[in-house]
């Protein structure tokens, strides 16, 4: 919510400044829209791009509804387009074009004072599925585990199920938090907490990153980390004009520097 507001104010601020220029409307995922895309947009303008941006981040599925309705030039998504979304766009006469923009690593975090620093993939699954209920079962100090997940509207919610849980459901006792920041806040206040956040958030002081099967999230070895996922931009048809200019900028060295700075990885 906060990010949406930030993105909106940012977009509005830009829109007011350069109302005369052409506007790129960007809609979709809050993983991308919170930090990465606004930063890229700012950098793009800084190096002389003559467009204004209007960014709203309310979840990946809004990317496709907006593209289909023609109310966005670019859609951001932290997951691949679903077949029914593709057909929806096609029935409106729009062929979507997919561009892989950056990789994100879903990072598992526990409280700073938790002695656990590595989890087996199988244990991670069992913890989030609710089979393992106590830290002593995985070699930690005894205490009931509190599981924090994102809510159902988040792309990370589904991606984590696919990447870490082999399609199993979250345990009944998991708590669904509205955003990455909230998960950080709860895990850092709860000695027995565990949760997952985007890599950009894992530097917070109250939490500790847990490696999975010995693999810690590392921007230099994204593909060997089991919980990494690509994120995408979608355009209607082949990008052209200012849309193309912006996307080319994102893939240029200057764009890649911004991507790295915001905690994503450009080319794994």
């Amino acid at each position, binding site marked *: 919510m906060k990010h949406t507001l930030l993105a909106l104010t940012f977009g509005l601020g830009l829109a007011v400044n350069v109302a005369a220029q052409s506007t790129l409307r960007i809609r979709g995922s809050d993983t991308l829209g919170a930090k990465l895309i606004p930063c890229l947009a700012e950098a793009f303008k800084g190096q002389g791009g003559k467009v204004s941006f209007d960014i709203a981040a*309310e*979840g990946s*599925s809004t990317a496709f*509804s907006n593209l289909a309705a023609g109310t966005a030039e670019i859609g951001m998504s932290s997951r691949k387009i679903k*077949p*029914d979304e593709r*057909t*929806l766009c*096609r*029935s409106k006469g729009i062929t979507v074009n997919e561009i892989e923009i950056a990789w994100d690593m879903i990072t598992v975090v526990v409280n700073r004072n938790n002695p656990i620093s590595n989890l087996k993939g199988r244990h991670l699954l*069992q913890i989030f599925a*609710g*089979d*393992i*209920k*106590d830290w*002593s*079962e995985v*070699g930690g100090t*005894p*205490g*009931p585990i*509190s599981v924090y997940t994102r*809510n*159902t*509207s988040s792309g990370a*919610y*589904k991606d984590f*199920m*696919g990447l870490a849980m082999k*399609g199993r*459901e979250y345990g*009944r*006792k*998991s*708590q*669904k*938090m*509205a955003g990455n920041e909230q998960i950080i*806040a*709860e895990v850092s*206040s*709860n000695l*027995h907490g565990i949760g997952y956040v985007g890599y950009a958030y894992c530097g917070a002081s109250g939490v500790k990153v847990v490696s999975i099967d010995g693999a810690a999230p590392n921007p230099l070895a994204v593909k060997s980390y089991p919980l990494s996922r690509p994120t995408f931009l979608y355009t209607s048809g082949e990008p052209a004009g200012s849309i193309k200019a912006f996307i080319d900028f994102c893939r240029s060295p200057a764009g890649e520097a911004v991507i790295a700075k915001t905690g994503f990885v450009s080319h794994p």
Partner: protein
Amino acid sequence: MESTAPPSRPPLRSLITRTRRRAASVVLTPPWLIQRYFAASAAATILVLLLILAFLLRESVGFLPAYRSELETYRRSGLEFCDIAREPLKHQQVLASLLRRAKAATADLICKQELADAEIAFDAAIAPVSALLDQLGAIAQQTKALDTEAHTMEATRQQLLAAAASTQNEATQKSLLAEAADLKAAPVDFSERITLILQHREELAAALGSYTVALAHAATKLPEDTALISQVRAAIPRHVSEVKTAAAALKEWQWDRHIPWHRAIVAFFFGSHWITNSPWQDFYGFIPLLVGSAVIALIAVCLATPISVVAAIYTSQFAGAREKEIIKPVIEFIQAIPSVVFGFIGISFLGDAIKGISEWDCLQWVPGFPIQERLNMFNAGCLLAFMAVPTMFSLAEDALNNVPRAYIDASDALGATKLQTVFRVIVPAGIHGILSAILLGLGRVLGETMIVLLVAGNRIAIPDFSAGPGVVFQPAHTLTGIIAQELGEVSRGSTHWQALFMIGSVLFAIALFVNWCARAVARRFEPCRT
């Protein structure tokens, strides 16, 4: 009108002409206009309310048939078959978890080794069943995916055909029709696909049978009793009998048995699972959310009632004029604080404060202490109570002020002290008003969204009432919170969307009922006024 009216009926005619004359003379005067404007405003409000009601009903009315057809697919694809076997096996995970905990807790090396062996035996017992169930589940999921795809394609085809029918351009029409023809998908043959699963029915029953035998055998090798191990030992007979019941149910199960209408109603109103966006099957069960809302409302009302009623008694009966001038506006000012501010207080201060206090040694006798979750029902209840105080205080105070002067005078005349008058005369005479105030406070608490969304902890599960009164320190999710959290994401018109509107309708009905109760209670109090 005048000319068509028959001359034989002068009274009507004179009536019409009279009203017309009056209307002509009255129509443009400012008082008439103002009066009409007021009436129109009232009518518009009622109209908007009716429109909202119609909208809610229109969106939610399709839910039950849609949910029923989802449940039918759930059965016909075989997912239900797998779940019958899976449900009791979940209990095995609980037992295994207890064993692992016992292993971590014991310091005795021999015991540790025995427990490790038992754990391996437990895992080995369930492995063949899980493998078979995973295989069957994959088939069932594939069936469901095929069915969904066929439905999507059919819907798209209809869309394209509709677009083709409405377009004027012949070339576009042709291409749309061609595209629609490409999309023709054969509906899924459930009876053929279900045989893929049902041919393993005997195998599954045998696997479940040998599982119970292996488990019972493993249980005999459990080491010396500690609290955790005896818990496992005690739970095993029940678990075994549950698995046997499930095995019997699997034999009876028929894929093509019709799902009656009331099943969808029961599954919604009495369902204990709210699972959405699931790769397996979505369930829309109402009970966990209702229980969360109800417990939080109860906490809030229990906390707010004493404070607001006592404050109302003091203000109306004991306070001097200057005190009243301070107390009333200050309490009513609380109403002006936006609820999201309360939410922030709950996250950033109250949660930590409650958690900190619960860790004090002198308070460990309180059930549920020390608490683990900052965000819980008690935290939300405290904030909601504070928010409900002004409503309840103002209404209760009004009720007490409305007690007829004659009652008080009579009590004074009989020589009663002030306290006696208050407790024996004024409060009993105003009790209906106080009750109505409490009910209206309850209505306010039930409808509040922002605080519960931020502070209640959002765990979609029926709280564990076996914890006794300590249950209030568990997190929960609420009816209002789930709408706020999930409505933004669901695609318009889907079953999930309709389910959320259904919840909205039920919430509306509950609020209506609470308000009606408050009015009914207050009406009994009316005669005292005269």
